[in-house]
Every structure is written in C-alpha cells, then in structure tokens.
C-alpha cells in the first residue's frame, strides 16, 4: 500500500504539488488523470525518490519511502517513463533485460535475452526488433520497449506514465489488456497516468484526478461517471467549457 499525505513540491516559483493526499491499496490499479502540466509525472517521481518533495510524507507499507533500503525498495518497482527513456547506446533487448543482467537479479546472458524477447512479444513486438537500437524505432515502438523493460523483472508495483500516448487504437488496446492482465493475474499494484478515457475504463479499478496541485476527486472507477465534481465531468467528457481553463 502506498500512502501520500500533504505532499508539496515546487520548482522555483512554480508550485506543482500543493498538498497531495492519496492512498493506493495493494493490488489496485490506480489511474491518475488531469490536464498536462498538473504534476502527474512529478507525483510518480516523488514516490520513487527521483524528485524530493518539499514537505509531506510518502509511505510504502507503512514505512516512509526514504527509510526503505534503497536497492530493495527499487527492486519492487517497475517504471515506464513518459518519454520511454531507453538507453540509446544499448540494443532493444539489452534495454529490456537491463535489470536482469546486473545486480541481485543477474542471470546468464542467454536467459536474460530469452526473457527480454518474451516480454517484447507481450507488448506486441516481434523478435526481429530485439537486436535493433532504440534510435531505429518509432516513438510508439520505443514506448512499448519501455513498457517491456518496466515489467521485465516482474515487479510488485508498476508505474506507467502515459503508456498509450502515441500508439494506434489497436496497439492501445493491446497495452490496456496487458496492464489489466498484469494487475489481475500477477496481483501487482499499478499506477497509470493517462489522458485516454478508454484506457481509464479498461484498466482502472480506482481513479484520481489531479488539478491545482491537489487530488480533486478520487474513488472507484464505477463512481467516476456519477460524480457531480465539475472538474471530473469536464475532463472525462473533454469539454472546452468548464472550471478548468483552456489556457494554462
């Protein structure tokens, strides 16, 4: 279980998070929605310790994230970055198998490669891409390689930052199914950022909307449509008119 309470983060004068309170129960698939630039990516990075919050507490299973043993803590996580963040000096399969080739999870090279090829298949990429370099792939393919890397070591907690942005509708469907499967079959806890309402409905068990530096609304996905919150309503229906200004 991940619990955030009163998390604040500012970059200079830009107050991004202004008191985020959120609980992600174990085994749930939490989807974060909200306009671009509202700090969704920053929120994930705060949990991982990539960005230090200015104040507030973040705990994992009741222990503050900064007090966990760092290696053991990170070994439980997988993260897909918004821009995929593949290592461009390494081949696709070496990217996917990165965690499997060093450190505590080290396996023989051939075995790591086989796992990588299998994970690539699950994100809809054939074995022929394994030996390409990330620079030779389209943006959508890079995104899927990033996804394969995030799930390569079967993490308990997975963060997906806009997993379907830039993918065609069919691929989006494949990825949504995959995320759903990871959560239901492997019992992982997932946190997904997305703007794509069809993804939200496909993968979320719970939804949280971030706006103005705080969580405006959170609840089970089934209650999302019925909530009277005008921010949520404007967002899920994609209306230009409403409390969220269109110039931000």
């Amino acid at each position, binding site marked *: 279980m991940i619990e955030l309470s009163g998390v604040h983060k500012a970059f200079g004068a830009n107050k991004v998070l202004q008191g985020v309170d959120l609980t992600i129960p174990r085994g749930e698939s939490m989807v974060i929605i909200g306009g671009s630039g509202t700090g969704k990516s920053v929120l994930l*990075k705060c949990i*991982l*310790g*990539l960005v230090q919050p200015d104040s507030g507490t973040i705990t994992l299973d009741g222990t503050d994230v900064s007090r966990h043993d760092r*290696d053991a803590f*990170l*070994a439980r*996580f*997988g*993260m897909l*970055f*918004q*821009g995929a*963040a*593949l*290592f*461009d000096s390494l081949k696709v399969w070496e990217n996917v198998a*990165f*965690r499997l080739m*060093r*450190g*505590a999870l080290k396996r023989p090279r051939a075995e790591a490669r086989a796992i990588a090829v299998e994970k690539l298949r699950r994100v809809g990429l054939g074995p022929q891409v394994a030996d390409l370099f990330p620079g030779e792939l389209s943006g959508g393919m890079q995104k899927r390689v990033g996804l394969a*890397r995030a799930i390569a070591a079967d993490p308990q907690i997975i963060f997906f930052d806009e997993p379907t942005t830039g993918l065609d509708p069919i691929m989006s469907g494949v990825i949504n199914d995959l995320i759903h499967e990871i959560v239901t079959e492997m019992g992982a806890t997932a946190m997904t950022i997305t703007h794509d309402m069809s993804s939200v409905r496909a993968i979320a068990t719970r939804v949280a909307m971030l706006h103005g530096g705080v969580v405006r609304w959170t609840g089970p996905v089934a209650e999302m449509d019925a909530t009277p919150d005008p921010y949520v309503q404007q967002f899920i229906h994609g209306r230009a008119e409403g409390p969220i200004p269109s110039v931000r």
Partner: protein
Amino acid sequence: MTALLAALGRLVLAALASVGRVALFALDAIGHMLRPPFYAREFGHAVMQIGWFSLPVVAMTAIFTGGALALQIYAGGSRFNAGAVVPQIVAIGMARELGPVLGGLMVAARVSSSIAAEIGTMKVTEQIDALVTLSTNPMKYLTVPRLLAATLTVPVLVAAGDSIGIMGGWLVGVTRLDFNSASYLKNTVDFLEFWDVGSGLVKGAVFGFIVALMGCYHGMNSARGAQGVGAATKAAVVSSSVLILAANYLLTEVFFSA
C-alpha cells in the same frame, strides 16, 4: 557603488559554491570507485572512446608542434650560436610541457564535450532517472568508468604524443636544418632524464581526471532541453581547458621550482 559590491560579492559566492559542488562530486565519484559493483564493459568502452579514438588528433597535434618547435629553437638558438641545442630542447619541451598540455587540451576539446553531451542528453531524456529505477547508480555506471578510463589513458596518450612530437622535431631537424640523424637521436636520448618524461605522465593523469570530471559533472547537472545540453557541453570544455592550464602551472611549480 554598493550595488556593484553586492553584485561582485554574489559572483564570488557563486564561484565558491560551484567549486564546492565540483569538489563534492569528485569525492562522491572517488568513493564509488572504491566500492563494488564495477562495470567492466562500460570501462572498456570508455577506454576506447577516450584513449584509442583520441590518438589521431593527439598525434597530429604533437607532430606539427614538434616540427615548429625545432624551427623556432634553431632560429632563436642561432642568435647566440646555440643552434645545436635543438634536439635537447625539443625533447624537454615536449616531455615536460607541450606533450601533456597540448594533449590534455585536445582531449578536453574532444572528450569532455562528448561526455557532457552524452550524459546531459541522458539526463534530459530521463535516462538517468531510468537507471536509478533499474537499481543502477549513475555515478558508478556512468561517471566512474569514464573517470578511471581518462585518468589511465591520457598518460598513455601523452607518452605517444611525446614520442611523436620528438619525431616531428627530428624530421624537421634532419630534413630542413641539416642535423645528422643518428646524433640527433643520440642527443635526445642521452639528454632526457626519467623525471622529464615521468612528470609529464603524472600531469597527463591529472588532466585526464579533470577532463572526465568536468564532462560528467556538467552532463549530470545539465539543465532541461537542448539548450541545457548545449550549455553543459560548453561549460565542460571551457572549465576543463582552464583547469588544465591552471593545474599545469601548479604541478610545474611543485615538480620543478628550485
């Protein structure tokens, strides 16, 4: 007037703060050097990038410098009938000063820029964050191999540059200045002492460390976007070049002042 003083004070404080940050970064890197894991593959890659591929540019620099040095020493020496000292002065000039300094500066231009651009790009495309989430320490994975490779290979480059520079002097001496080939070489070998060459190699190691340190430091601290990477690259080249020249003066004082 007070505004001017305040501005000056801020400038000095900012400079001191950045010296402090670089020093902390260097200590952190050295700390990581002494603790496992050690990424051998990254180290091998860095040795090729920093050492092997810098050889052509260092060789070109050295051969032309050695040749020009021979001409100048002959011209200057002839004014007081000392034209014959060309082999000795070329040798000592190359080994003690020009080999390490010019080699260091060429490596600074070539290597600190590419390190800063590479690591800076990794930083702004979240690859450094990705490394962390994959339980890999960026200091160990990126900085340590480059620092070690540069510190170990630049002395080798300096040794190669010294030899090639001396050859350049010999070529010009024999073809343009009517020196006897055998006696030119004999004079060079008899004259050079171990420490003439050794001091240059020590300088090379220090300059190599500076080059990689500045490349990694500015890359890791790159601001966001293409502009951030551009600024980091520029800062890496300028700071490593200036630091090399300053360190060269200090080392020369330490090694050779009576």
